[in-house]
């Protein structure tokens, strides 16, 4: 069997498949259906200092091969997370990455400080696709200096793996990946959702109460792959690939494009065991192709030479 483990800033994941923030709850709802011990890790729903109720309904709508959501970072708050969820998560034998959302840099720091002392929190992923209250709601993640500053401030507070999760809604994601790297991040996650919208033509109202929302699912996979390719060529730190991964082949595409690991999001809604099946499928692929270390796939894209047409029907 191929070597599947992956070490990120001292944290060893047993394989390269994590479940993405906001798409697996706090890991405790799916225990009947899927054994988290078979995952590389669980990224929690974004946690903020205080609980957040989230946006009014409707919060989700399906689109062609994708879905829009406007959950609004609904979460139980970091304190209740520590009291109620973390004890369960500690028992799951998989890495737990706490995802943090905030509306000011100080709040990011507060949440991280509270979590940093907790046993069972193995690392952090910082959701910078949040409205910045001081700057009138503009997204932190679309300002390079902001991403730098958040990363630098948080880096001082923790020695655990610090991952910055980038938004794709920018012209050059490579600039943001570089900003995160230069400010001390251990990795970047690429991508969060694309801004999108859908309309009910009979009521002339948006299908989401918030008008626009975040697009995820297989529809965005080509965009996510291009962003991972762009980001991974710009930085030396690992890139974690996210966006529309439904099966092992999709995940392998991300590794070849330059991702060191992947996260599975929307696919969990279709199949709560998707992450596990993907990790297993990647092993099978390695075995069939005599790949000894799955890490050898990372960034192995061949871009020179002639590309010949595949004619598998003949």
């Amino acid at each position: 069997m191929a070597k599947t483990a992956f070490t990120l800033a001292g944290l060893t994941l047993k394989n390269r498949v994590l479940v993405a923030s906001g798409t697996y709850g706090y890991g405790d709802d799916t225990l009947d259906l899927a054994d988290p011990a078979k995952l590389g890790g669980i990224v929690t729903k974004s946690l903020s200092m205080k609980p957040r109720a989230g946006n009014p309904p409707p919060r989700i709508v399906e689109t062609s091969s994708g879905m829009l959501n406007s959950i609004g970072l609904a979460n139980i708050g970091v304190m209740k997370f520590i009291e109620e969820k973390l004890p369960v998560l500690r028992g799951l034998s998989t890495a737990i990455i706490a995802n943090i959302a905030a509306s000011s840099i100080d709040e990011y720091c507060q949440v991280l400080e509270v979590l940093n002392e907790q046993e069972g929190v193995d690392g952090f992923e910082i959701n910078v696709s949040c409205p910045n209250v001081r700057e009138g709601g503009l997204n932190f993640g679309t300002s390079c200096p902001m991403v730098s500053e958040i990363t630098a401030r948080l880096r001082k507070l923790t020695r655990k793996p610090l991952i910055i999760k980038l938004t794709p809604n920018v012209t050059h994601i490579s600039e943001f990946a570089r900003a995160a790297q230069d400010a001390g991040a251990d990795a970047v996650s690429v991508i969060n959702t694309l801004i999108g919208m859908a309309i009910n033509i009979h009521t002339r109202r948006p299908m989401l109460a918030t008008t626009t929302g975040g697009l995820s699912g297989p529809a965005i996979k080509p965009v996510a792959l291009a962003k991972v390719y762009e980001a991974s060529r710009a930085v030396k730190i690992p890139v974690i690939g996210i966006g529309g991964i439904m099966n092992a082949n999709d995940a392998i595409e991300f590794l070849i494009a330059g991702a060191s690991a992947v996260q599975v999001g929307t696919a969990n809604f279709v199949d709560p065991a998707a992450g596990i099946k993907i990790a297993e499928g990647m092993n099978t692929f390695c075995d069939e192709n005599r790949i000894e270390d799955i890490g050898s796939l990372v960034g192995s894209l061949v871009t020179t030479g002639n590309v010949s047409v595949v004619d598998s029907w003949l």
Partner: protein
Amino acid sequence: MITQELSPVTGVRQLADTVFVCSVRSPRIASEVKPGQFVNILIEQTTDPLLRRPFSVYRVDGDRIEIIFNVVGRGTALMSHKGPGDTLDILGPLGVPYSFLDESFSTALLVAGGLGVAPMPLSTGFLKSRGKKVVTFLGARTASAVLPHHLENLQVATDDGTMGFRGNVVELLGSVWKSHTYVKPKIFACGPTAMLRGLAAFAVKQDIPCEVSLEGPMACGIGICQGCPVELVGEEKKFALMCKDGPTFDVRKIRF
């Protein structure tokens, strides 16, 4: 316990213009499901439609479950073309059932609008086997849309008066209520949100206990996406999840 079952389709039959019943062999779900719970069905392996589709369980027959559905879009259109030889990937049973084990009532008033009849046959069987009296009020647009199968003590209302009472099902209930003799009644309802709102207002006014089964967009059906909030009464902007804390709710506890 929630299970994921690859369920062979045993048949799909047409009941009305756009209404079909799909039977599948799902032994684990069949043995665990309670009335008011639902299943979440992956209809195709392609990515359009992408998500599962939620459906109430209409009936249980041995190791088979039945779904009654209306063709309203891509997923339900595809499901209407299934037949023996096809397989559906089903998650269930999901959600909180109607609280039929509640000792405080002895007459269940089942109130359904349109395809809100879906959970009622399973409910009827369950209630009768536990010695409860069942009275059913069914509303529909017109006579041909009435789905009267496997129900008990049925009273029908149609919008156009082509069958039973002319008007909506809440008006029918109101008209019957004046002279009712139900012993310890409780309402259990399913139907369009507008109808359920009218019913809730009636139940509160008449001081009848009332549970409704809601429906709305769902992505996961199992509580991991936070996509299906239902506002709770009391606390400001606090939400329950329709899929996990519902779909059945006491009307006094929610704002909908």
